[in-house]
Every structure is written in structure tokens, then in C-alpha cells.
């Protein structure tokens, strides 16, 4: 499974070295063009670099230097820079929504309030559910939405056909479980795969998307712990049901997931929009076998959409060229033709709603049997996802929730009891209240 929050490979020593080597990003300007640096990672950075050239042509007095810092290295580097009072940070920082609240809460002043630079007018320009997440508790706007990854339900149409299942008739996850049992019986394939013991990396995107479909998460907007709420228990119970039915494959171990996919042992990949380009790259020989639709809802008639993650551009609070930096962000992220060029060059699904009228989002995709694959995601975003509040303690919550999922999947623990303990532990560790 792809895990964006990979192992942070840097040790303490590495961190200190970085702190020591920071510095020196900013030079005093003397009439020449202003240079702004952008920190990002591949392949998104390729898209940004492509439009930076156009921007420089239109704004000869601003030079844009897009630096590929890499993910996850960028998080440590930003943390170290902020802990050093903003020294050595790039002017523009590419930040995932799972990290943004940590930086905003733990380093006040570390990121610039974009409202002051005129971000307010783009409040309704982006996919629903994003703007509240980039808004801090103080009402400041700390990043502009760039990339959004709505959840999808990629399935093997050939296996579904063999088992006599009509994908369109799957409306709830309970329907999917019934379908999964048939699939297992007729084709031997599992419905989904999860890294059950969370060996190597945590595998929580699926659980989180079940929460998000219900408009819930580990925390609510006030920052109280909601890990033992009814939706949280409901989502974990669904996963337990699937596991007890024997339709969840264990994908732990090097390359296990890929092996299962190659051999047709996984019928469904509950992956986000990025998989629309990743699956064709990974399994070119399975061309025509895959289809994508919106995932089923948790409850009948319930919401089917969820935003798995999103990434954003922020401006360092200590940058000397905030106005110029914002000008570039405005150029790159708020103009449909520009953001679509970023999408084409960098494979980053745009958050800007005006971008979706481009024909590329409704064009048939050969790999997916001529189905307009991207349209599924546009439909999802048009339906509108709820905002997800990651809070500054997301990393801790993720770990505790992952432990709970492991207990449920490997020891058959009771979801309600396990999550009650987990929520207690999360509240104790973070000093937050349990939501009532």
C-alpha cells in the first residue's frame, strides 16, 4: 500500500545537521529580480516547475526556484526550519493537510496568514470541504488548496462478471460485503487488502475514508477526540465484518500487495484519485480489466464521497517576499488553464473546481475500458465531501487508531471496546477532551 506518511528516516543526528546547514536562503535584494524558492516533492514539483517558467515570462522581476525536497524528508526539514524561527525555510512550502495543523498550532507565526495577502476571495473556488481545513482557529488562512484526492472504488470488472455481480447495484458497504463473499467463492479473490498487523507501515486510509464518508474523523472541529464516536465504531465494525467473512487479504510484507494484485487476488482497491494514473503504470498488462466508481456508502442513502487527503501551498511566516510568493501561488492555483497544465505535467488532481470543465476530466480512459475514469472523482467532489479536521495531534491519533485496527483484525477484538480504550488513551496523551 502506498503510505504518504512513510517512515521518517532521519535520526536525531540528521535533524541537527539539517538545522546547522539551514540558513542562507534569503539574500538582501538590490534592485535585481526577486527570487522566491518553492519546496515541494516529485512528481508534483514537475508540474509547478513547468508553470513557473510561464510565470517568470509574465513577471520578469520575479524568479521562481522550485526545489525538490522530497516526501517525507520535507516534513523534518520544515519542522527544523520552524523550530529555528523560520531560518532557512523556502518562501513557499508544499504541505499535506495531515501536517498543516501541526505547523499552524505548534509554531505560531511560522506560516503567513494568506488572508492578509488577499486569499479571502478564493474561499469558494476550491472543492467543498477544503477551505475549512486550511483555516486556523484564529480565522487566518494558512495555505491555498492545490491537490485533492477523493476516494475511489477501483474494481476488477472481469472478476465481478465471473461472480455474477453488478457493481452498480452495490450501494452500501454491506452490499459490498455480500458481493465480497460471492467473489471469494467464485473467483478466490479477496474483496480488499489491508496490512493487518501494520508491519512496516500503517494502513489507515480505508478506515479513515469510512469515517470521512460519515462526516467524522478522529477529532471534531473543536479538536475534541471522537475516536470512540458512533461513526468510528460503525466504520471499525464494518472492517471487522469483512475480516470475519474472510474477504480481507493481509497485505503485510514486502511486495505482498503488488503480488496479490498481479495474480488477481484483490478484486477492489479502495484507493484515491492518484490511483487513476498509478494502477495503469503499475499493471499495464491488466489494461481493460479495471473500472472505477464511487465507493458504496456506510449507511443506505448516505454520502459516498470522501477526501482521502489534500496538499496545499503555504508561505513561510518569515519570508521577505510574501507578496511575490502569493502572486505566484495565485497564478499557479487559481487559474483553470494553469492548474490543468500542472495536472498534466505533475499528475496532481487539482482542487480548483473551475478546472473540472476541461475536457480531460470527462474524456474516456482506454485503460479503464473506455470509461471516463476521472469523471467519477469530479462527480464525487461535486457531491461535496465534508471537511476533515486533522488537528495538531494527527500523528498520534493515526498511530493509536492503527493499533486499534490491528487488535480488531489480528485478535478479533471488539470494535466498540477497543476504540473506547484507544480514545481514552488519545485524550490522555494529548490533553484533549473526549467529545461528549
Amino acid at each position, binding site marked *: 500500500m502506498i503510505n504518504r506518511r512513510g517512515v521518517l528516516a532521519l535520526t*536525531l543526528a540528521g535533524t541537527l545537521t539539517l538545522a546547522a546547514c539551514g540558513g542562507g536562503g534569503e539574500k538582501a535584494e538590490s534592485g535585481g529580480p526577486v527570487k522566491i524558492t518553492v519546496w515541494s516533492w516529485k512528481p508534483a514539483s514537475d508540474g509547478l516547475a513547468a508553470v513557473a517558467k510561464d510565470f517568470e515570462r509574465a513577471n520578469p522581476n520575479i524568479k521562481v526556484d522550485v526545489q525538490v525536497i522530497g516526501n517525507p524528508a520535507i516534513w523534518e526539514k520544515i519542522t527544523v526550519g520552524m*523550530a529555528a524561527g523560520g531560518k532557512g525555510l523556502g518562501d513557499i512550502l508544499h504541505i499535506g493537510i495531515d501536517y498543516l495543523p501541526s505547523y499552524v498550532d*505548534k*509554531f*505560531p*507565526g511560522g506560516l503567513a496568514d494568506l488572508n492578509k495577502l488577499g486569499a479571502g476571495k478564493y474561499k469558494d473556488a476550491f472543492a467543498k470541504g477544503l477551505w475549512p481545513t486550511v483555516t486556523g482557529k484564529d480565522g487566518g488562512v494558512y495555505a491555498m488548496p492545490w491537490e485533492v484526492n477523493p476516494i475511489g472504488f477501483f474494481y476488477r470488472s472481469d472478476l465481478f462478471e465471473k461472480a455474477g455481480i453488478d457493481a452498480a447495484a452495490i450501494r452500501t458497504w454491506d452490499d459490498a460485503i455480500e458481493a465480497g463473499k460471492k467473489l471469494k467463492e467464485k473467483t478466490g479473490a479477496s474483496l480488499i487488502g489491508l496490512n493487518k498487523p501494520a*508491519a512496516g507501515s500503517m494502513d489507515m486510509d480505508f478506515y479513515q475514508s469510512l469515517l470521512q464518508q460519515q462526516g467524522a474523523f478522529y477529532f471534531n472541529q473543536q479538536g475534541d477526540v471522537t475516536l470512540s464516536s458512533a461513526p468510528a465504531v460503525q466504520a471499525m465494525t464494518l472492517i471487522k465484518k469483512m475480516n470475519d467473512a474472510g474477504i480481507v487479504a493481509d497485505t*503485510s*510484507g514486502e511486495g505482498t500487495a503488488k503480488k496479490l494484485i498481479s495474480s488477481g487476488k484483490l478484486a477492489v482497491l479502495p484507493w484515491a484519485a492518484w490511483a487513476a494514473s498509478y494502477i495503469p503504470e503499475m499493471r499495464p498488462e491488466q489494461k481493460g480489466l479495471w473500472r472505477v466508481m464511487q465507493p458504496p456508502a456506510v449507511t443506505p442513502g448516505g454520502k459516498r464521497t470522501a477526501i482521502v487527503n489534500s496538499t496545499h501551498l503555504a508561505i513561510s511566516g518569515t519570508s521577505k517576499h510574501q507578496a511575490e510568493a502569493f502572486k505566484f501561488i495565485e497564478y499557479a492555483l487559481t487559474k483553470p488553464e494553469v492548474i490543468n497544465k500542472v495536472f498534466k505535467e505533475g499528475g496532481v488532481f487539482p482542487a480548483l473546481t473551475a478546472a473540472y470543465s476541461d475536457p480531460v476530466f470527462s474524456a474516456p480512459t482506454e485503460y479503464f475500458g473506455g470509461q471516463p475514469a476521472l469523471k467519477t472523482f469530479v462527480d464525487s467532489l461535486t457531491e461535496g465531501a465534508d471537511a476533515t479536521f486533522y488537528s495538531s495531534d494527527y500523528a498520534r491519533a493515526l498511530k493509536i487508531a492503527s493499533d486499534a485496527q490491528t487488535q480488531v483484525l489480528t485478535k478479533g477484538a471488539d470494535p466498540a471496546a477497543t476504540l473506547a480504550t484507544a480514545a481514552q*488513551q488519545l485524550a490522555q496523551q494529548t490533553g484533549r477532551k473526549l467529545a461528549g
Partner: protein
Amino acid sequence: MTLTMTREAATKGGGSPRSHRPLITKRNIPYLLILPALLGFVAFKAYPILAALYISLTTGAGAARTFVGLDNYVRLVNDPLFWTALWNTALILVVQVPIMLLLALVLALGLNSPLLRLRGLWRLGVFMPSLTGLVAYGVMFSVILSKDSGLLNWVLGIFGVDAIDWLGSPFWARIAIVIALTWHYTGYNAVIYLAGLQSIPKELYEAAMVDGAGAVRRFWSITVPQLRPILLLTVVLSTIGTLQLFDEPFVITGGGPDNSTLTISLYLYENGFRYFDFGYAAAIAYALTLIVAGFGLLQLKLTGGKK
């Protein structure tokens, strides 16, 4: 110090003003000699140690740091994960250290045997694992321990043993850590023992042989007592090393599954660098230091008391 100063004062009082005292004198040269080491110690040890003590009494980071007194320590005592980490560490310690040291002793005896050919090669081979870098080590063990395609399960399969889920089951994950640790450090200890064995005077063995002592008797009556200080050293070093265990769970299991291989150092790292909770991480560091110091003293008392 006091003595020196009094004497200097006395000299001055004696009324012999010295206009140009040499910069380097017989008296200050020892201090000058230890100065570089001392500066290094202050900058890279004393300062961080004291700073960590202060940080452990605070919460937040950067501009948002606030003093909270002993809150972090109270939280620590009430944190089930800390106790889990302590328990895991103790389990690994109790199982792994004796196995490793016994193995190291056997290896050292073998390497010391005059009957052994290609001695240098064998010694190098035994010591090699301790030189392996962390990342290579991690990759290697993930290949060896993989459930479906791992070397170890393949070998076990030849003997009809079912595939073991080394990294997916709490019990086997701990065993995996024990195996990795033993692989990594046995050679290191064997080399220390080897040096110890070679410093035992040959005359003792010759005299014992003349008196008719067999090999087993010679081992227990000469080798073991002579090695005693070195045995003690390795026990203390290994205990301290295991209490601070970080590398193996970090690269092989990530502390999982379900925290079954979470160690104190790993928990410290997670709090500091994954959750940015530096105050709490510093408190864990101090707790660990106390535990290590306590164990060290206890072992010295129990085993080295006679000296």
C-alpha cells in the same frame, strides 16, 4: 584548587610583582591538555543534558514553549504505552542478553583454539555483523524474515515447519528482534572475550594439566574466574545497550505489531520527532537514564562487590 590559590596569594603578598607571567606554565598545562575534550564535553554532552532536563519540564515548542513543572513525569507514570515499552525492553533483555553472551563465549573459545585454521578469516567473519550499517541491516532482515518469500521461512520449510509470520505476530516479532540483536552483537562480545582469553597466562593451564585437571575442570577453575571482570563488563554493556534498544525495532518492526516491540528509546523518538512533543520525549529520556544508572549500579554491586 583552594590550596593552589592560597599559595599564589601568599606569593603575591610576599611582594614580588611579576610583570610577564608566561602563558603556559607547569601548573596549567594539564588543564590546557584536557581543554579541547572539556569544551567538547560541555558543548555536546553537558549542555544537551541540562537543556533536556529543562525541556522535560516544559511543553510545546519554539515560541509556544511553556513551563509545566513535573506534568510530563506524572503523565509518564500514567502512560500505558510507556509501561508496555518498559515491559518489552525487559523481556528482550532477559531472553537475549544471556543467549548472546553464552554464544559469544563459545565462539571466543573456538576462535582461541590452536587447532583452528584460517583464524583471521573466521575472526573477521564473526566480527563483521557489528560493522553493518543500519539501513543495510534493516533491508537484509526484512528479506530474511519475509513471511512468504523469506530465507528463514524457506529454510524452516525444508524441515517441514509452517511459515512463521515473523513481523505480523507479536510473539514472533519479539523473537525476530532477539535474533537480529544476537546476530548484530554476538561477534562484538566474542572479540572482547577473545582478548580476555588471550591475556590468561598459559602457565596456569600448564600447571593445571600437570596436576591432572581435565578440559572441563580447567574451563571452570581457570578460564571463568580469570574472565570474570570481562564477563562483568559485557553483562553491564549489553544490559545498558539493550535498555537503550532502538535500531532493531526501528528498522525491522517499527515497534509493531500492536506495540509488541515498542522500546523505550523508540517511544522517545516517536514522541520527539513524530509527534513533536519534545517535553515529553525529554522526560522519557530522563526516566531511561535513571533506569540505566540504577541497573548499572545494581549489577556492579551484585557481581563486582568482591573486588
